[in-house]
């Protein structure tokens, strides 16, 4: 069983989904699963920072995709690594009936904050599943 899980948010600057994914990843890392998460950084991975390469090679990866092109997963695959779970945030919010249109990439409204918490809890459950997988 893996000791930790790598969460890699795509962290787009110009979409609200990038913001929601980034904030959710902080909650999972710091509050819901402290000590069990390594937080991958897409720009650093692209720049081949060794720490970030180690994260995706040593631990199962969950990507939080803020763009329909799934940039984070594509980048992981460029390093010939598998992505355990890809979460498309826009689709996730549609499926869970959360309308985050009160939010922007700069600032979250109350629905955006709700979306962050929902996504964080959902991701934490996926982390649990990966941590107990043999």
């Amino acid at each position, binding site marked *: 069983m893996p000791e930790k899980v790598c969460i890699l948010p795509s962290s787009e*600057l*110009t*979409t609200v989904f990038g913001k929601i994914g980034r*904030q959710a990843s902080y909650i999972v890392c*710091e509050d819901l699963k402290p000590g069990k998460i390594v937080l991958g*950084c897409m720009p650093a991975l692209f720049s081949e*920072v060794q720490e970030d390469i180690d994260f995706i090679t040593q631990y199962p990866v969950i990507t939080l995709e803020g*763009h329909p*092109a799934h*940039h984070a997963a594509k980048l992981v695959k460029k390093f010939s690594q598998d992505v355990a779970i890809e979460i498309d945030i826009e689709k996730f919010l549609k499926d869970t009936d959360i309308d985050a249109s009160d939010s922007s990439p700069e600032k979250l409204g109350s629905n955006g904050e709700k979306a962050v918490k929902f996504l964080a809890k959902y991701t934490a459950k996926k982390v649990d599943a990966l941590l107990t997988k043999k």
Partner: protein
Amino acid sequence: MKKIAIMPCNGVGRVVSTIIRESAYKIHSLRPDATILISSPDLAADNPDALLNAKKYPLIIIDGCKPRCGSNIVKTKGIKPVLEIYAPLVCADKKIPLSGETRVKLGVKGTWLAEAITEIAVQAIDDILSNKIPTIQENLPFKVYMDKEKMLSSL
């Protein structure tokens, strides 16, 4: 109308990334018609719009830490920025302690650094748009990277 593209560090691991993102949004809000924001993950992934904008407009990079991922991403795409601002040097120059700041939400000191970076970038944008080479390198003691030749040719 002339525009300047801004590509900030868009990392997630360090507080400085949050500070630079806030700064980028502030820069855009202060010069909404003259700036366009580029998301580094989009550029890294060869998103056509991000690539087009990074090539079309004079580009300012704001790097957050030693790997200088923003600068590295544009370099690998064959794009040369007109200006690179390195946030840790701004932080050191202004003597802003970041202890107690978190990457989730900025406090007073993080906001202070974001404002300092914003001020530098906005001054550079105004200079470039008035067909001047930014004077910030001479006026401030920290190092601001700049390619003057490229800047002049892009105006």
